[in-house]
């Protein structure tokens, strides 16, 4: 928990900094110049108290702070400006650029060098930081890519091996297969084909999401009809009780029915895949706070609390789960829901099991308005 908080503040600080650095250059210049002017002006009445040499340190501090925040150009301008301001307003004789003593001249030159070194060093540190960040990112990408390759080669090769192996067995004239064995091999080929088709579908959907080309097309949807379609498709191929408990007075929602269907399909498929045969999957649909709310609850083992956030990550799979998934299904759910401005949450069902809640903000239309045509 504390690690997450630290990580979050770290990233917010980075965000603020990168926002400041991405300001237009003239604005950065203006801020730097103003800051130097304000500090110099503040020191001016106090000069009698602190002396012009301490004033130099105050100005130097101001330039150092600016160096942490802004780009090198504006910071160099601030360094030069502050040196000149110090010379003009503070070094005796004041209100001239003339410097009286050799000691002060040396101080002035050193001031300028220190301020510049300050600016350059901050720049270097930043460059090193960025390089480290890039490297970290690259490593993460490579790791993700490896996970993808591992999971894909396994997920695609398993059904392919099944098909090739079963066909070999069927073609081999030497072996004598019973009718039952032949039927088993044929249905194994069939199942493998469907599995390949599903994985390709997942990859295509992931591709649509990753490419950023996904544009939801909202149209009027009857949620009963949409969920009913998913239920009859999955209900016929699973040993689970899939139950639809939708509010009968549900309005029509204006949303992308194709995407929502995929979302519901993936969540129900996930529930069916990872709960024991005979488990119950209850799909609920309601209308709350201007959103279409769909819940999917099962009475399987559920998700450990620490896994709930990660469950939607790409290629993430629960430890010790059976094989037969790429870890793409739920990340597609999150992506498709997010593309429509909605949210998806994973919680616990009572007494045990997983509870998914999808909320998609959508315009509604009540049937009664049209009843009398």
């Amino acid at each position, binding site marked *: 928990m504390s690690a997450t908080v630290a990580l979050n503040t770290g990233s917010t600080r980075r965000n603020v900094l990168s926002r400041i650095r991405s300001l237009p250059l003239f604005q950065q210049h203006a801020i730097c110049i103003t800051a130097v002017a304000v500090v110099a002006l503040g020191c001016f009445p106090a000069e009698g108290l602190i002396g012009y040499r301490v004033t130099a340190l105050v100005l130097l501090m101001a330039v150092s702070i600016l160096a942490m925040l802004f780009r090198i150009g504006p910071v160099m301008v601030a360094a030069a400006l502050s040196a000149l301001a110090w010379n003009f307003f503070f070094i005796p004789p004041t209100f001239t650029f003339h410097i009286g003593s050799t000691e002060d001249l040396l101080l002035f030159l050193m001031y300028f060098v220190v301020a510049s070194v300050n600016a350059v060093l901050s720049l270097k540190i930043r460059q090193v930081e960025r390089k480290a960040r890039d490297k970290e990112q690259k490593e993460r990408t490579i790791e993700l890519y490896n996970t993808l390759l591992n999971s894909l080669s396994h997920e695609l090769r398993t059904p392919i091996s099944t098909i090739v192996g079963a066909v070999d067995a069927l073609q081999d004239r030497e072996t004598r297969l019973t009718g039952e064995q032949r039927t088993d091999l044929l249905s194994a080929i069939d199942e493998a084909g469907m599995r390949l088709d599903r994985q390709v579908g997942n990859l295509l959907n992931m591709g649509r999401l990753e490419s950023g080309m996904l544009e939801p097309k909202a*149209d*009027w949807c009857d949620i009963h009809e949409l969920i009913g379609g998913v*239920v009859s498709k999955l209900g016929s191929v699973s040993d689970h009780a899939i139950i639809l408990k939708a509010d009968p007075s549900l309005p029509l929602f204006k949303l992308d029915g194709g995407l929502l*269907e995929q979302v519901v399909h993936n969540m129900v498929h996930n529930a069916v895949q990872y709960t024991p045969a005979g488990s119950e999957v209850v799909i609920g649909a309601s209308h709350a706070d201007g959103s279409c709310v769909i819940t999917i609850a099962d009475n399987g083992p559920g998700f450990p609390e620490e896994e709930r956030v990660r469950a939607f990550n790409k290629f993430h799979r629960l430890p010790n789960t059976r094989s037969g998934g790429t870890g793409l299904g739920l990340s597609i759910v999150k992506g498709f829901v997010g593309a429509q401005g909605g949210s998806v949450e994973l919680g616990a069902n009572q007494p045990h099991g997983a509870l998914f809640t999808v909320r998609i903000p959508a315009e509604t239309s009540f049937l009664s308005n049209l009843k009398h045509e």
Partner: protein
Amino acid sequence: MNKAEVLVIDDEAQIQKLLRIALESADLNVRQAESGRDGVLMAANHPPDLILLDIGLPDMSGQEVLKELRGWYTKAIIILSVQASEADIVTALDNGATDYITKPFRTGELLARIRSAIRRNNVEQERSIIVCGDLEIDLAARTVKRDGALVKLTATEFNLLALFVRNEGRVLTHRHLLREVWGVGYQQETQYLRVFVRSLRKKIETDPERPRHITTESGVGYRFS
């Protein structure tokens, strides 16, 4: 009776091989074209009873082949497409395709679609009383009976049902249904369609949540059977 003839226009050798075996074993004559250009020529030389057209052809887009064929060919054209391209399917249906099937398809389902489409070629039925499972629809008297009992429908509900019944077994796009029942200005008003399909299902289906007569073809339209 002569064997019905199917022209398959598809550039995939494997699919061609599979289709030839499946169709011939179902007692259909098969002719094959590997490009849209060849397909159009073969259809013109000797019009088949049905054309099975792959929408993703290399030389011309399947949609263009379809438009060209529809210039003169009036019998059934079934589109072969891949999943997740509902927009292409809807365009093809609006361009005059009779039906569609997505890859990977079940041979049994494909044959059922082909038979049903060929049957509709031959019988330009305008029977007035149509029986479909537990439903009996009298188009002239505008009455519907379910298991012998009269079902009360509103005028719009009946118009919608009549349109479905006249196109039994065939997929109808949302646009098509809206245009035929409500009129040309209503082609985008899908909420009318959703509402009336829902109320119609409540009246004619045994289990409206799992409809048997009016089935949803997701992203495309509805099919009555």
